[in-house]
């Protein structure tokens, strides 16, 4: 809707339109894009000339729909259009928002929280229709903290009793790889097309998931690490290998995530362990030269995984037999007490018995187990307390100030207050 009578101070054109930004009314020049004027964040237009009675107290029989609800609905649509989701998701998020807004847990919350609610409705609708979007993306749209949005999301899902599907990292990889601007406007040796990049990144994430690098971790740094390694290994020339993760993110115009560097290290470790099993490879693999072998490793990853695990079993076999011999002297029998149980099961059980260092024994284990934090050793239950024991006077007196102490303390407090 063009506004007549106004002219843009920047270029002088009279082609000025209403272009609301979320909840803020703005007049923008179409030709040069400058903002001619912006309205207040609150919308007083509807209530101009209205009485002093607040909306919730009006006794009018035919109440106009709540302005905040309408604004919220517009907000939902705006976000759906930004994310370019299909019509079905738009409608679904609108229904969710209307339902949630009217619910008693959300009707009286702050406007900011209602904005979060709008974002969460979009998020849950996307998830239900298999449209990949992360909570991080929504919180970026809302310019909010991930944890706060997450809290509203959880509350909304419980309140509306929705059974939303859980997060699936594979859905999101393709969408994320599109963000990396390394196909055009980049030097020849560094350019890569998105299809190959995504395909290899998916394989790397699958491998990482099988070897406990992905579970429990933030998904976006994992994806970033996978895309970086995939890009390096697709054409492992010296230009690409020289580029660090930081520089790669700068090149691709993507904001680097701090944990991504650690994920790169962890993935390279996994690749080295698998690369060791390649029969035709002469050299020893280190994190520096493993990138060149990534293609082969990924191609034969399942076979290499099996070999690596079997090799580990065989390495641990003499150890477990030795421990069996220490027990009753029927060592040859022990290896075959239960034909249904595989050696892996048995080893796992003995590892389980050992307890704390099962992570060190396994070939692949979640990194939080392999690098377990040293916990302060708790003192064991010193006494069996019944709860009804005698309480000694002296002990209680030790918690009470002497009169002199109390006076001095009071004096000191007064000094501070002055």
């Amino acid at each position, binding site marked *: 809707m063009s506004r007549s009578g106004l002219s843009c101070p920047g270029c002088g054109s009279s082609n000025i339109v209403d272009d609301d930004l979320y909840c803020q009314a703005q007049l923008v020049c179409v030709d040069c894009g400058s903002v001619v004027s912006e309205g207040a964040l609150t919308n007083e237009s509807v209530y101009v000339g209205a009485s002093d009675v607040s909306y919730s107290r009006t006794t009018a029989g035919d109440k106009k729909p709540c302005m905040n609800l309408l604004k919220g609905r517009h907000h939902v649509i705006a976000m759906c259009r930004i994310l370019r989701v299909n019509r079905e998701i738009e409608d679904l998020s609108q229904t969710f928002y209307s339902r949630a807004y009217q619910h008693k847990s959300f009707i009286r919350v702050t406007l900011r929280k209602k904005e979060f609610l709008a974002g969460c409705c979009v998020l849950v609708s996307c998830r239900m229709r298999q449209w990949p979007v*992360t*909570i*991080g993306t929504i919180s970026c749209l809302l310019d909010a903290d*991930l*944890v706060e949005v*997450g809290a509203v999301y*959880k509350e909304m899902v419980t309140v509306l009793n929705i*059974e939303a599907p*859980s*997060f*699936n990292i594979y859905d999101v990889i393709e969408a994320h790889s599109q963000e990396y601007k390394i196909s055009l406007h980049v030097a020849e040796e560094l350019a890569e097309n998105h299809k190959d990049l995504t395909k290899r990144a998916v394989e790397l994430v699958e491998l990482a*998931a099988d070897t*406990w690098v992905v*579970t*429990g*971790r*933030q*998904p*976006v740094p994992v994806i970033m690490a996978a895309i970086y390694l995939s890009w390096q290994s697709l054409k492992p020339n010296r230009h690409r290998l020289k580029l660090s993760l930081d520089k790669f993110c700068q090149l691709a115009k993507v904001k680097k995530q701090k944990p991504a560097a650690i994920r790169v290290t962890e993935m390279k470790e996994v690749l080295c362990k698998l690369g060791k099993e390649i029969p035709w490879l002469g050299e020893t693999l280190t994190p520096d030269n493993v990138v060149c072998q990534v293609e082969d490793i990924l191609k034969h990853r399942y076979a290499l995984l099996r070999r690596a*695990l079997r090799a580990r079993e065989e390495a641990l076999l003499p150890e477990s037999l030795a421990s069996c011999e220490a027990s009753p002297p029927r060592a040859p029998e022990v290896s075959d007490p*239960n034909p*249904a*149980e595989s050696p*892996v*099961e048995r080893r*796992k059980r003995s*590892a*389980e018995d050992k*307890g704390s260092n*099962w*992570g060190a024994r*396994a070939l*692949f*284990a*979640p990194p*939080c*187990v392999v690098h*377990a934090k040293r916990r302060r050793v708790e003192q064991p*239950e010193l006494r069996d*307390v*019944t*709860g*009804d*024991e005698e*309480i000694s006077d002296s*002990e*209680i*007196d*030790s*918690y*009470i*100030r002497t009169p002199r*102490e*109390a006076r001095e*303390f*009071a004096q000191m407090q007064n000094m501070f207050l002055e």
Partner: protein
Amino acid sequence: MDESALERYFDDSIANESDFLLGEELDLQSPPPPGKGPAPSRGVQVAEELDLSFLPDELSSRDEQSRHDNTADSQIVPLDVSQDSGISGDYNSQDATAESEQGPSMSGPGTGVSPFYPMTPMTPMTPMTPVTEKSGIIPQLQNIVSTVNLGCPLDLKFIALQARNAEYNPKRFAAVIMRIREPRTTTLIFSSGKMVCTGAKSEDQSRLAARKYARVVQKLGFPARFMDFKIQNMVASCDVCFPIRLEGLVLTHRQFSSYEPELFPGLIYRMVKPRIVLLIFVSGKVVLTGAKEREEIYEAFENIYPILRGFRKQ
């Protein structure tokens, strides 16, 4: 019981048995519903004695597989078996007497017609593996929260002045924070006379600590009593010592679990009976909270352990 009625019963049970076995097959990954528990294991035992050659190959191999699974993972069918073994046992003895009355001629068609039939009047029942095969892991209590009513209004400023171990900042929070060394606990004392005690590692320690705090308040000159002591929350933790595939667990137990790696690295499992919340981590560590009694924690852990074992693989 006359011959025709018995035969009719056998025919009925064959019709139901095939459902049982199929159910066992499909439910290998998760605990089967209680009603279907006993039949497969009984059927399997019977199969050892009887000639199954007339059955199609597929069925007998299924029996083999389920037998393997039974020996390796007997946890999957723990409680179900015990519940029904009693009933079948009774029926068995009943039937045995009926059989012996009829004479040996009855037993032939009876056992021949229904190979999967749970009751074999002629063969003695071998005792089942002990039903309560526990995990062997006991969750350790880490924190107990309890409340008690001292029964008289308190002057918090006075308490903060006279007690060594108290801190009071009315601008930040409207209660005195008091600590004692043994048992190592912290308490919040409100001006109404109500008190919240946290940090104890057992119910008795919590009670002792609360009594000590009440004594301190008494010594300071208030007519404090010790009324309505109640444990409000218990937190425990333990380690199952194997890694857990959280993504798989959230798919199969969707109604109870919530796993959002972007928000929290652990899976939040809200168990319905007993009403406990468990935080399950990829390392195999489990935190249980929300209990008012110690038994609820143990029960919750025994419920979750077989589920977690199902998700342990390499």
